[in-house]
Structures are given as structure tokens and as C-alpha cells.
């Protein structure tokens, strides 16, 4: 059925009423967990992701230690109750891959050389999945890193662009991902415009790819404003005391 299902209505809006270049309603909150050194919650429509950061701390097993910088470890995991069909809690092939791409997407922004011989552990837990969980995860993880006080080059924000019924759409949800023609998650450093994560599932022409990247950047800029807002919200009270 791929590509046959009608996902764009006659008036040009999508099934959930959004315009093609519109994000889902976004909610971000920083410092949601007490035990973690840094934490954040990100909601994009019905997708809900929580991220926790621990460290810099001593590495176990010790042989992973690097003498000149910290290592970054990342676990992306979907809760068994996050999907309609129960998801086995064991890490799947997909989750292992996403952990890797998210780790690589964050490695380029963290100044790891400031904390030699330590580890920074990032845990991303998907509480509710409705498409775009990896990009929501990396967005939450970068907020959690900032909350942990770890020096970074920039924040990272991510969004997925898809192609449904031949039209490029921003921030695709589960239905659009499943029945659409293409899915392209992108994460960027918004201040630099540098891409830290880019995957593409499906088929796009070179022109469409260029167009999709532009659309993603537009979405990421909006998300970046939300991120800054969320960080300011938590720390504005402390600022007044200074």
C-alpha cells in the first residue's frame, strides 16, 4: 500500500490538520528528574521522550577509558508501553543503531577533552511513540546535557522530514512514516547550521532532498527557540537571585 494511502486532504492539509511545513505542538521541560545530573522531557504531538544525563563520572568497565577525553555513551530505548503492540524491552537491532547515530550526533558538540578518563552517560527513554522519536530524543538529550552543566559547542535539535503523496512534509508522525514514500530524520547545530545526524529511508530526487533539508532546517530553527525557552524557564528564577 506504500504511497497509495491518501495522507493529504483536498485542502492541502494533512490528516491531523497540519500544513505541510508545520510542526506538531511542542512542549519541552528541563530538570524533570532529581537523581540525574541533567534531564529533559520533549513532547512533539503524541511523541513523548525523556532524557537523563549522568556524569562526567568514572568509567566501568575501566578498559574503555580514554586518557585525553571523556567518552560519551548513549542508550536509546523504547518503553514496552510506548507503542500499541507491546514492544519487547530488550534492545532491538533498531534501538542499537539509533543509540549509535544519536551518540555520534551529540559527540560533535560536547567538549569531551575537558573531562579526561571519564564517561558521560546519556539515557533516552521513549515513553510514547508516534514517529520522530530519535529526533525528539536527540533534542531532549542536548537539553539534558546543557542542564548537567557540561560545556557544549551548541545545542542540537532534530526533526524528521517525509514525503507523502508526493509532497514534502515537516515533522512526520507514525501514519505518515508508515504509508509515506520517504522519511528523513535530520539533526543540526542551529547556531552553525551544521548537520550532526542525517538518515534517509525511501526515495527522494536530488532536488527533493535539497528541498527537504531546507524544510528540516526551518523546523529545527523553531525547535531551537523552544529549547532556549525551556532552558530559560528553569533558570530564570536563579538569574533573578544573581
Amino acid at each position, binding site marked *: 500500500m506504500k504511497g497509495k494511502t491518501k495522507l493529504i486532504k483536498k485542502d492541502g492539509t494533512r490528516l491531523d490538520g497540519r500544513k505541510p511545513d508545520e510542526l506538531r505542538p511542542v512542549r519541552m521541560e528541563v530538570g524533570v528528574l532529581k537523581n540525574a*545530573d*541533567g534531564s529533559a522531557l520533549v513532547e512533539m504531538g503524541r511523541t513523548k521522550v525523556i532524557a537523563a544525563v*549522568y*556524569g*562526567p*563520572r*568514572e568509567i566501568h568497565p*575501566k578498559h574503555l*577509558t580514554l586518557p585525553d577525553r571523556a567518552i560519551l555513551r548513549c542508550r536509546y530505548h523504547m518503553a514496552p508501553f510506548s507503542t500499541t503492540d507491546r514492544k519487547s524491552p530488550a534492545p532491538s537491532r533498531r534501538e542499537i543503531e539509533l543509540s549509535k547515530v544519536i551518540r555520534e550526533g551529540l559527540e560533535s*558538540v560536547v*567538549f569531551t577533552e575537558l*573531562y579526561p*578518563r*571519564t564517561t558521560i552517560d546519556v539515557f533516552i527513554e521513549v515513553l510514547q511513540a508516534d514517529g520522530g522519536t530519535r529526533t525528539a530524543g536527540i533534542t531532549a538529550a542536548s537539553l539534558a546535557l*546543557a*542542564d*548537567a*552543566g*557540561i*560545556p*557544549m*559547542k*551548541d*545545542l542540537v535539535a532534530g526533526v524528521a522530514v517525509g514525503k507523502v503523496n508526493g509532497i514534502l512534509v515537516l515533522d512526520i508522525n507514525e501514519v505518515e512514516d508508515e504509508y509515506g514514500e520517504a522519511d528523513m530524520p535530520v539533526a543540526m*547545530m*542551529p*547556531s*552553525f547550521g551544521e548537520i550532526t545526524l542525517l538518515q534517509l529511508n525511501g526515495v527522494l530526487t536530488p532536488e527533493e532532498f535539497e528541498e527537504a533539508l531546507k524544510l528540516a532546517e526551518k523546523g529545527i530553527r523553531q525547535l531551537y527557540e523552544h*529549547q*532556549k525557552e525551556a*532552558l*530559560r524557564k528553569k*533558570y*530564570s528564577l*536563579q*538569574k533573578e537571585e*544573581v
Partner: protein
Amino acid sequence: MSGETVKRFASRLVTPGEPLCAPEEFMPGPGTYVDGGHVRAAQLGIASYDLKTRIVTVKPLASQPRIPKTGDVVLGVVVNIRDELATLKIVADDKGENYSGTYTGILHVSQVSTRYVKVVEEAVKMGDLMKVKILRDSVPYQLTLKDARLGVVAAACSNCGGLLVKTSSGQLKCPRCGSVERRKTAPDYMFVERRRRGRGSGRK
């Protein structure tokens, strides 16, 4: 200075990656870095521009990562002991604030005391909570006890497990079974024998 300039260089809350100024205007200070022709914030915090020294700094707002460093006095628990070596789990700094996770430290006999000590057990035992100084912040951390303020802060009786109490003569005595043990105690040992007159009970 024009109003626009004052506004640009006023203290404000910044997030990582935010451009602060050109490196020609202000030198990058702590909490900042230079990239792409801008001085940028490396941390979430308050940017402040020092017009005298021409240095821009970001004072962090989020709690900072704390890692034990050379020269720090830290609290640790003895988790393993051999004749010539004690292994400690460093849990907190000398103010008692926990680190994120624990760090492994090693105390060699040669660092136990300024006088000759044959085996580590003469001065410390398993499970002791102690104040130690970090000699070298390599992994594992090299520790020392060679300082008057360092030593065991809390210890349990190796016979019955009761908390040892420091007597007026400086010995450690078990109030339950009465056995006396040898330790190198810190001056702020937590359990001190109650004197008849004054309130000489332990601090904390």
C-alpha cells in the same frame, strides 16, 4: 557609549552556542570558546562583559560537574585491603557533598603515615570511612594519609560490628564488646566518648 552598545554588552542569560561578541571586542574567558569569528557561550549561564579587562565570561547557572582533583581532600570508604595496599571508593568531597558516581582510589602503605608502617591494617580497616588527600588524579586515584587532618572519620569494630568510639586517650574502643583497635584517626572523628562534665559528643 551608545544605548545600542550598552544593551549588547549587558549581562544576560545565554545558552550553549549563542554568539556573544567578536574576539576583537572581548577576549574569551571561562565558559566561552571561539568559533566561526564569534566568541560563543559554551554553557548555560550569565554572560558578563568586563569592560576593564575586555574579557567576556559565562558564569554557569546549571550545577557544575564535580570531579576530584589533585590536592583535594575527599571522603572514601575502604572496600578492599591488602598488606601493602588499600582500595577506597571515593564518594564525596570534604564537605560531604556526593560526587556523581564513585571514583576508585588506592592508598599505598608508604602513604599511610610519616613513620614506618609494616601493613596497611595497622592504620585502617575494611569498611572505614576516611578522609584522604588525592596525590595524583590519574585512574585509579593515588591517595595519601600524610597530613594531620587526614585519617579515619568513622569505623566499626572488627569483632562485633559496633561503632568505635574515640576515648580521651585517643584510642578507639568498642562500647559493645570492649575491644580496643588501632587506627589513624582524623581530628574530626565522628564518635567521641562522652566526658562526665562537658558535652564532648561527636560532631555532625
